[in-house]
């Protein structure tokens, strides 16, 4: 039985890093042992009225200390509950789940939009090539400093308060970035834009997708996305974001 099991993890740190954005380190050696950038963890609430897991991407992996970092935004009651956790509190977690990014390419653009930014951090750490980070925000920025260690950071904000006014594609264009590979995580409209951009420029792109989940392990068929080809598991053109993804090559999926 090699699957990711549901276990109790201890909170090593949990603090606000921007308005409504929290950074949490969990002591979870079982998770870090095999974790890869782009994978996620299912977090469970401690209140029986909220049954389903909350999928949160892995932001950093500390194999030595057996700790995994998650950065999340308060989006509802579950993430609000997590924000209230203190050091040494317990939380049920299952992971690492999903496939993660494939480390490849010579010159990469890592694109994160909003709460899609965190998983790019561990990817930036592990990806061994020339890296350009494009981070898109609505207004308030977070984590951008931490990316600077790994390459040049370009920022876009919707309100223009920092970096290029507009979205991540605007930032790429404004800065004339070039690459042979794109990695992206963010809201679907952003991924759609990235896919179009990559296609137009003939660049390979790996996209990390999001969908409502129930099981997180590929059983309920809740989290599918439309795939280009008939999928071997579904035998229809559906892939499971939790199990076959969350990372897909842009040409595998319909957005």
């Amino acid at each position, binding site marked *: *039985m090699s*699957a990711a*099991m*549901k276990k109790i993890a201890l909170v090593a740190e949990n603090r606000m890093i921007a308005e409504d954005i929290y950074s949490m380190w969990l002591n979870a050696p079982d998770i870090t042992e095999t974790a890869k950038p782009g994978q996620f963890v299912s977090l469970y609430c401690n209140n*029986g009225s909220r*049954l389903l897991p909350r999928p949160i991407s892995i932001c950093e992996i500390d194999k030595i200390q057996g700790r995994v970092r998650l950065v999340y935004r308060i989006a509802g009651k579950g993430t609000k509950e997590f924000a209230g956790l203190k050091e040494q509190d317990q939380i049920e977690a299952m992971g690492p789940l999903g496939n993660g990014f494939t480390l490849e390419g010579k010159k990469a653009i890592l694109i994160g939009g909003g709460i899609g930014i965190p998983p790019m951090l561990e990817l930036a750490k592990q990806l061994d090539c020339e890296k350009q980070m494009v981070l898109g925000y609505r207004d308030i920025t977070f984590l951008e400093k931490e990316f600077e260690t790994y390459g040049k950071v370009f920022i876009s904000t919707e309100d223009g308060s920092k970096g290029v006014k507009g979205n991540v594609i605007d930032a790429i264009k404004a800065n004339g970035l070039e690459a042979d590979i794109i990695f992206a995580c963010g809201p679907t409209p952003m991924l759609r834009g990235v896919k179009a951009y990559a296609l137009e420029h003939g660049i390979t792109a790996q996209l990390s997708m999001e969908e*409502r989940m129930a099981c997180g392990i*590929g059983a309920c068929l809740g989290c*599918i996305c439309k795939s280009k080809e008939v999928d071997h598991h579904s035998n*229809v053109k559906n892939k499971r974001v939790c199990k076959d993804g969350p990372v897909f090559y842009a040409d595998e999926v319909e957005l």
Partner: protein
Amino acid sequence: MNTNVTIAGVTFNNPVTTASGTFGSGMEYSEYVDLSKLGAVTTKGVSSIPWPGNPTPRVAETYGGMLNAIGLQNPGVEVFIKRDIPFLRQQKAKIIVNVVGKTTEEYCDVVERLADCDVDMLEINISCPNVKEGGIAFGQDPRCVEAITTEIKKRAKQPVIMKLSPNVTDITEMAKAAEAGGADALSLINTLTGMKIDIHRRAFLLANKTGGLSGPAIKPVAVRMVYQVANAVKLPLIGMGGIVGAEDALEFIMAGASMVAVGTTNFINPSATPEVVRGIEEYMKKYNISDIHELIGCVK
């Protein structure tokens, strides 16, 4: 201590199976659960040809439960027979195959295709609220229930379980109709039709607007219906709806179910099923029950 139950001639090691659609084809959980330790694995609804299901979002959390509108996505019976049956047999699991269709003919197609396959029982889903045609429509009118049961029984070589919908005024009518049509057993309940609205986006949470409500929230309705049906027909029952642990399973058994199925809880706790098996055994030990049959329907 005996936990064996026999339903329509098929003997199961214990009275715990999985609720269709919440355990994949068993494969998805085989890393969490030793499938041979379950009474049986009940597989996701299978149709004659592959079904793509509904658009997303397909699932939504509700208070103490969830809504789903998967829409019976499945790879079709051919792939199921080639891939899933051999796998389950290799795991030494008893197999109950859940069957779906849009027309009586489609149900019959699948049943005929499975007739010579190595499976233990068929469960006919006439109660799915998430497809436009078929599904629940068959399960809300006693004449339809009886007619489809009769047609299926003509073709099935394995014992037939009819799966009832809770979205009816009087579930005993449907149970009696299935009995009249020749069903060998009944399973209940499927999901209650529900809806969730996202008040911030002012839109339905599910692309399908409505979905099926499952999970512990619905257990009292399910136990009530099992009790009613147990007192209305002679058929053995598989009870389900909101089972989280052994205590819930025992409620269904005491209300009259010979077997129980764990559904939504698998999503929250992948190793729930063997825990329920163990919990029932512990209860029997604690209260000195030597045979599970002493508990089936013991509350009147």
